[in-house]
């Protein structure tokens, strides 16, 4: 019998709960998002002006930010869950975990930058 | 064969053979008392046959109806047809309550009354609601809880180890030799005390409720060591075996209100036990069924009558008897809520076994001389708690209570005594058996011999017996024993050699069946489960005594000098009527 078969801290419960909470939030925002940009536009590509105009509303920008963080958290945490299922070498796990954190930081940076840029542009230019 | 040739040599305080209720309860007690104990079982402990018990475990808790130890005692004595030893029964009914509360404290999930106490139900032969139960998996939860407790208390388990020989010399037990089923190879267990708790042996019959593992190995080992067996002619036939399969449909079905009917749709128990009807003792009902069948009132012309659960109501069937319902559905595709289920009597419980005293020490003669360091408990033993016929739910209780007693006796013994010297060449006996099967040049198959034995046992030593049939049976067994010497097995490997195990088991059954037949032939009366058509009356003058039987070079030696313990002032023998 292995003496200590556990090796990680007790974050499983929180991760599990947050995965579900983020899922429910995403469900609402994602469908809204897709509807706005893809369907209600009736297949027309969104126009530059409209997109920029929308982002002028701080509420909308905030919603985009929430969307961004939730989706990133949910997606990358999900990916981590998959890794935990299949990768059992401690070092490989550590390596992949670093990659995921790196990806999270990078994507969060790009995404936030996009929102700020759009919000700071003037419509109609 | 030298000790060194064993795969492994274990030195341990106590060895328990069998991981059923009796074995585990004993092991737990020994471990709790601080001694080292090894449990050997040929199946994983949770797969022992105690787990199949459905109905309940008896104790006069009086949680539902009025009840008392005195009443429990009377019911048990009457049920035993006065062959039960009353000192044992008196002790048993007192300890029974303690045993159940202990179980509850260990965590056994019992079904509850509305006010949260252990619920109790009716059971055949008991005149109060006395069977504590957990839905219809009582034995299962008891067994699992005990196993878990043993883990907690660091009992050593040797799972899938089958005992092949006992190491007894000068009437002192020195341990056992066991075959490691998984990997092959013999192990020696050198111990101060050995408990035989290897369960029932109904497998000698064709229609039986018993598991494949219930082959009475330790009975054969006892006979092999020139020790006697007691009351072997008493085998209980349960009235509700699933037709053709023999699998038990719990008595709880009748407890809940199911009817027994014949081909004409009559509730035939009216004729045989007008007062108790379907709740009469098992032997009475089994004989009633067999009579109905023999007289041509079996359903659909088969060897079967009907168990009709419909009066219980569909919802209650699913609540209280889900397992019974499922068995009938799976094996016969019959929905018990809508149709009656065909059943027939099935060999179920063996009252006889290894003679032991109230402290569970194995004895070697009618005077009660104990074999030092050897104990027996559970169905394999004969204390004699159940006499000529056991009451339902008393056996789980007997196994558990006397398992505990055995544990206490053994830990006291283990602490007071040194380990005896190992016998010379301990492996010889076991190895000889294996060699015979492995290298034998014969062409007999153990399965054929077993089938013939079972067929004959059911036909001649079943519900009804008579002189002619039993004599024939004796002859057949003799022939089969001769043929058995030529058995060769086809699997010569080490790992999980099922062929070898089965051959060994058939050998065991041939040995104790011989003793059974001899006892049944000698006992010229009808008492409890033993019914002789040529001697249909109970005969207290001649036969109110126990049978001890030895196997000698020239047949079976019988001794009827062991008296039954009876409190004449309290429970004098009466006619058993229901």
């Amino acid at each position, binding site marked *: 019998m*292995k003496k200590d*078969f*556990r090796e*990680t801290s*007790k974050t*499983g*419960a*929180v*991760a*599990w*709960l947050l995965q579900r909470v983020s899922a429910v939030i995403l469900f609402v925002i994602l469908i809204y998002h897709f509807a706005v940009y893809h369907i209600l536009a009736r297949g027309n590509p969104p126009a530059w002006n409209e997109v920029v105009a929308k982002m002028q509303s701080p509420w909308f920008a905030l919603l985009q930010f929430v969307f961004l963080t939730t989706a990133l958290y949910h997606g990358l945490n999900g990916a981590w*869950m998959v890794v*935990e*299922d*299949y990768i*059992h070498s401690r070092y490989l796990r550590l390596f992949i975990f670093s990659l995921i954190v790196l990806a999270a930081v990078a994507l969060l940076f790009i995404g936030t930058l996009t929102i700020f840029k759009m919000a700071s542009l003037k419509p109609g230019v | 064969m030298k000790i060194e040739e064993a795969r492994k040599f274990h030195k341990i305080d106590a060895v328990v053979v069998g991981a059923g209720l009796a074995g585990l309860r004993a092991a737990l007690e020994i471990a709790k008392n601080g001694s080292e104990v090894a449990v050997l079982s040929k*199946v*994983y402990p*949770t*797969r022992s*046959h105690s*787990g199949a018990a459905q109905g309940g475990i008896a104790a006069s808790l009086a949680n539902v109806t009025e009840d008392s130890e005195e009443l429990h005692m009377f019911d048990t004595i009457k049920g035993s047809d006065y062959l039960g030893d009353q000192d044992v029964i008196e002790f048993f009914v007192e300890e029974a309550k303690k045993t159940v*509360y202990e179980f*509850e*404290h*260990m*965590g056994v*999930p019992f*079904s*509850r009354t*509305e006010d*949260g*106490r*252990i619920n109790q139900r009716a059971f055949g032969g008991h005149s109060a609601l006395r069977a504590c139960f*957990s*839905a219809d*998996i009582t034995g299962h*939860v008891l067994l699992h809880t005990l196993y878990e407790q043993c*883990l*907690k208390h660091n009992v050593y388990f040797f799972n899938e180890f089958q005992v092949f020989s006992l190491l007894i010399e000068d009437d002192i037990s020195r341990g056992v030799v066991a075959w490691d089923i*998984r990997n092959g190879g013999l192990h020696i267990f050198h111990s101060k005390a050995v408990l035989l708790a290897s369960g029932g042996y109904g497998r000698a019959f064709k229609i039986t409720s018993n*598991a*494949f593992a219930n082959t009475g190995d330790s009975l054969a080992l006892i006979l092999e060591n020139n020790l006697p067996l007691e009351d072997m002619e008493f085998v209980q036939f349960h009235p509700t075996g699933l037709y053709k*399969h023999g*699998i038990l449909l719990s008595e709880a079905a009748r407890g809940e209100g199911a009817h027994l009917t014949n081909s004409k749709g009559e509730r035939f128990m009216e004729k045989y036990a007008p007062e108790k009807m379907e709740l009469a003792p098992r032997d009475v009902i089994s004989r009633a069924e067999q009579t109905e069948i023999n007289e041509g009132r079996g359903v659909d012309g088969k060897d079967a009558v009907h168990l009709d659960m419909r009066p219980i109501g569909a919802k209650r069937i699913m609540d209280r008897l889900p397992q019974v319902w*499922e*068995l009938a559905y*799976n*094996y016969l*595709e019959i929905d018990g809520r809508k149709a009656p289920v065909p059943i027939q009597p099935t060999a179920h419980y063996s009252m006889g076994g290894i003679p032991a005293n109230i402290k569970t020490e194995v004895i070697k003669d009618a005077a009660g001389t104990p074999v030092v360091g050897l104990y027996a408990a559970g169905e394999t033993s004969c204390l004699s708690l159940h006499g000529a016929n056991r009451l339902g739910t008393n056996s789980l209780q007997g196994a558990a209570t006397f398992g505990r007693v055995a544990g206490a006796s053994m830990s006291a013994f283990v602490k007071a005594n040194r380990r005896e010297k190992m016998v010379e060449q301990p492996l010889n006996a076991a190895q000889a058996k294996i060699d015979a099967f492995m290298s034998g040049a014969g062409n007999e*198959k153990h399965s054929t011999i077993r089938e013939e034995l079972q067929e004959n046992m059911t036909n001649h030593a079943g519900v009804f017996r008579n002189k002619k049939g039993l004599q024939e049976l004796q002859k057949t067994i003799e022939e089969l024993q001769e043929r058995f010497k030529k058995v060769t097995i*086809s*699997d010569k*490997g*080490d*790992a*999980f*050699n*099922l*062929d070898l195990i089965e051959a060994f088991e058939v050998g065991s059954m041939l040995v104790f069946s011989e003793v059974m037949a001899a006892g049944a032939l000698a006992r010229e009366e009808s008492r409890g489960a033993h019914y002789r058509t040529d001697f249909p009356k109970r005969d207290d003058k001649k036969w109110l005594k126990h049978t001890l039987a030895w196997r000698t070079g020239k047949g079976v030696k019988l001794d009827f000098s062991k008296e039954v313990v009876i409190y004449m002032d309290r429970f004098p023998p009466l006619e058993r009527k229901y």
Partner: protein
Amino acid sequence: MDKKKKIKVKILRYDPGKGKKPYWKFYEPEVDSDATILDVLNEIHWNIDGALAYRRSCRSAICGSCAMKVNGSNILACETPLHRFKGKALKIEPLPGFRIIKDLVVDLDSFFEKMNRVKPYLLLDKPMPDKEFVQSPEEFERIREACVCILCGSCTSSCPSLWANDEYLGPAALLKAYRFIFDTRDDGAAERIDIVNDRNGIWRCHTIFNCMEACPKHIKITEYLSRLKIKAVENSI
């Protein structure tokens, strides 16, 4: 009596003594038309090939010995009638996910050892009552079904999480944890949840439901695991 008929069976055999890989072997036994899978195996073992090994004891679906995989499902051989396979040829193999000892016999040591990890016994702080602990019928009902588990291993064997990770506790052990954590008599919930709330514990369950499909006792395993997850969450925040 019922009619005899010949059926086609192939069994995955493995003999460690011969040291090769498992291989398929074909048989054509003659059995009663209402036979069970166990009857088929017995017929082969007794009359055709004595070297075939498998576990069985109670043959009434209560001991859990005879779990194996037949035509793609984990079942108990003793309670499964032939007619369930509608005349198709039988394909019998040992439970997946465990090591094979011989033929249909698998190594269940790790399976049982995982049971032990969840401390499968009451942990009590309160004093023992003279008689029984009081527990209402409703409280009993909560754990009743979980107590039916016969430790056959079918569920754990069918769980993709186990295939990917040998250290995963598996549904049977988790169910055992549920049975004790939700027993009103028990005081050890925190201790046990600590064991279950782990990388190799409850969080490896992704509600795949193979376990529930495989359980011969029809225990709603996944439902109980969900309750266990929620309990673990409650205890962690």
